C-alpha cells in the first residue's frame, strides 16, 4: 500500500506518529521497577522544588533513557532507510558498511589501552566510526566515482574484517572486561550524560533533516544509478552526501548506545508497508517509527526481568521479527 505524497498526508502522518511517540514516552516514564502515576511523572518533569524519590527516578533515570531511545531509534531507522535506497538493497541496515564494527573496535581498543583513554570510549568509538566511514568510501569507489555496488562489497568486507579483529582483541582482554563489551554487541541505553544529550539532539536532527533534503533524489535513485543520472540527478554528489549523513547518524548513535540491531533494518520495511516507498513520506515515518520502537523496546528491556535488565538489542530482535513476519503475511497473504 502506498500513501501518495501530498502535504496533507505528510502532515497527518507526522502528527499521528508524534502523538504515538508522546504516548509511549509517557508510558515509559510511568512504568518501571516502580509504577508511577501520570501526575507524579508530570511533577517530575516540570515541577520545581525538592525532588522526592519518584521525581528523581523520572528525571534522572527514565527521562534520559527515553530521550536517548528516541534519538537513537530515529537515527538508526533513518540511516537504514537511506542506506537501503543508496545501496538499492532491501537487506541493507546501518551496520552493513562496517560503521558499528569500527565504533566497537575504537571503544574496545580504548579499553585495552586502559586508563584515561578508556574513560573516553564514546569519543574513541566515534573516531573508529569516522575512520571506517572514510576507509569504506575510499574502497568503494570505482574509476573515481562512487558505485553503490562496490560500496556495498567494500562495506561488507570491512565489517567482516573488523569483526574478526574485535574477536581477536577481546580474546586478549581478561574475562571480566569481556563482560563489559556486551555493550557493543547488544547495545545499552542506561548511561548518557547531559552533554551527550545536548550534542545528540541537534546532530541527529540535522542528520535526518539532511537526509530528507535528498528525499526526492532517493526516490529516483531506487530506479538505478544510470536511470537516475538520465533523470538529471547528480548521482555522485547525492550518493556521497547521503553516505556521509547516514554514516554520521549511525556513528553517533552507536558511540553512545552500542550496536542495537534489527531496528535499522526492520523499521524502514515496516514504514514501507504502511506508507510506501516515497521517501518524502517514508523518512519521517521511519524516524518517528524508529523512535517509538526503541522507546518501547527499552521499556520492555527494563521491566521484563526486573530488578535485572535485558540487553535492549535482544529485545529489538526478539520483538521486531514477529511483528515484521505478521505484517509481511498480512500484505502478501
Amino acid at each position, binding site marked *: 500500500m502506498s500513501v501518495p505524497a501530498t502535504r496533507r498526508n505528510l502532515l497527518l502522518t507526522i502528527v499521528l506518529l508524534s502523538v504515538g511517540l508522546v504516548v509511549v514516552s509517557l508510558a515509559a516514564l510511568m512504568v518501571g521497577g516502580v509504577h508511577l502515576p501520570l501526575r507524579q511523572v508530570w511533577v517530575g518533569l516540570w515541577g520545581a522544588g525538592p525532588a522526592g524519590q519518584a521525581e528523581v*527516578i523520572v528525571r534522572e533515570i527514565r527521562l534520559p533513557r527515553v530521550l536517548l531511545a528516541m534519538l537513537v531509534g530515529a537515527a538508526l531507522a533513518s540511516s537504514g532507510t537511506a542506506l537501503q535506497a543508496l545501496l538499492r538493497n532491501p537487506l541493507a541496515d546501518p551496520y552493513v558498511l562496517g560503521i558499528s564494527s569500527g565504533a566497537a573496535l575504537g571503544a574496545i581498543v580504548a*579499553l*585495552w589501552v586502559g586508563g584515561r583513554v578508556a574513560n573516553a570510549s564514546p569519543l574513541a568509538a566515534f573516531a573508529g566510526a569516522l575512520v571506517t566511514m572514510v576507509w569504506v568510501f575510499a574502497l568503494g569507489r570505482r574509476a573515481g566515482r562512487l558505485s553503490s555496488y562496490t560500496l556495498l562489497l567494500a562495506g561488507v568486507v570491512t565489517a567482516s574484517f573488523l569483526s574478526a579483529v574485535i574477536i581477536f582483541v577481546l580474546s586478549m582482554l581478561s574475562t571480566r572486561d569481556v563482560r563489559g563489551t556486551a*555493550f557493543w554487541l547488544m547495545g545499552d541505553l542506561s548511561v548518557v550524560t547531559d552533554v551527550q544529550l545536548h550534542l545528540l539532539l541537534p546532530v541527529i536532527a540535522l542528520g535526518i533533516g539532511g537526509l530528507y533534503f535528498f528525499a526526492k533524489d532517493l526516490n529516483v535513485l531506487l530506479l538505478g544509478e544510470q536511470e537516475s543520472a538520465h533523470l538529471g540527478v547528480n548521482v555522485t554528489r547525492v550518493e556521497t552526501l547521503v553516505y556521509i549523513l547516514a554514516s554520521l547518524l549511525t556513528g553517533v548513535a552507536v558511540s553512545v548506545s552500542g550496536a542495537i540491531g534489527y531496528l535499522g533494518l526492520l523499521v524502514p520495511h515496516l514504514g514501507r508497508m504502511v506508507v510506501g516507498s516515497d521517501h518524502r513520506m517514508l523518512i519521517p515515518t521511519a524516524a518517528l517509527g524508529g523512535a517509538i520502537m526503541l522507546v518501547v523496546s527499552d521499556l520492555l528491556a527494563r521491566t521484563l526481568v*526486573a530488578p*535485572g*535488565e535485558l540487553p535492549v538489542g535482544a529485545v529489538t530482535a526478539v520483538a521486531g521479527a514477529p511483528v515484521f513476519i505478521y505484517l509481511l503475511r498480512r500484505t502478501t497473504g
Partner: protein
Amino acid sequence: MRRIPNERSGLKKRHTIALLLAGVVCMPSATSLGRLVTDQSGRRVDIPASPQRVVSLAPNITEIIYALGLGDRLVGDTDYCDYPPEAKLKPHVGSIVNPSLESIAALKPDLVFGTADANRRETADQLERLGIPLYGLAAHTFDDAMQSIEDVGDVLGQGAKARSIVEGLRKRAQAVEQRIQGQPRPRVLFVVWYRPLITAGSHTFLSDVIRRAGGIPLNEGLRGEWPRLSLEEVLRREPDVILFPRTESFSPALDEFTRLPGWRELRAVKEHHMYFVPETIMRPCPRLVDALEQLAGILHPVSGSPSEARK
C-alpha cells in the same frame, strides 16, 4: 586416560585387590595417598602421588602455590598471573579462557590446576584427552577459598603447611569480624561494570567476602554470577557505599559519576562514598584476606576517617 598401575611381579593378585580397595575407601577428598580423587569442583581426577611439574591456569592458583613455597614446582602459568613478581617470569601458556594446549603439553606437566569460575570445561576435557590431569578448584564462598588453599597443599604434599597458612588467615578474618561486630552494616553496591550496570550475584564469592567485611551486598534476588541491574533499582535500594574493582582496564574517574544522570542522585555518590578495592578481592588466595581487611577498613573505618583506599 587412566594411569594403569605398573605390573609388579611377585605381588599376588589378592594383595593387589586389597590395596585397591583400601585406596577406594580412603577416597573422599584429596589425600596424598589416593590416586583417584574428587576435586573441589566435583570432578573425579586421577592424579600422581607427588606432582613435581605443575601448571597453573589461574592467577589465584599461582599465588597459592608460591605462598606454599612451591614456586619451583611451577613450570608454567597464564599471561595474567602477576603475583608474586617471579610468576611473571615463568613460561606462559596463554590466557585464562583460552590457554594454548600445545604450550601446556610442551611443558610436560604431571598436573594442571584450574578453577571452575574462570577456566573452561573444554580445556579440562582436552587436557584429559592428552593424558594430562586437571585438578579443579571452585570457590563460591570464603570458606571455599580456604579449602582451595588446603586442597592445593594436600595435592602437592604440603598439606600441613597449607593448613597452618589457612589457620593464620582464618584468625585474621575472625579478628575483622570481632572488630566490626555490633556496628551498623553499610549497604554495598559492587560495580563490576557500569555500562551496562553489572554487579555480583547474591550467591557469589564476592558477596560472601563483602558480608564478612561487614557490608550488606545490594544484590538480593539477583541470581547468576554477573547479573545486570537497573539504575532505578539501585536508587530504590539506596547503597551507602559503592565499590569499584581497580583493574588495568577499568579505572573510571570517580568524579565522572557526580555528573551522570541518575548516578549523581545517589547518596553514596553525592557524599563521595565511592572507593576502589584491589582486584584481589575477587581472587581466592591468601592475599584475599589483605583485601578483606582493607575492605573492612573502608566499610568500618577505625578512627572514623576515610580509609586510604579511596580514589
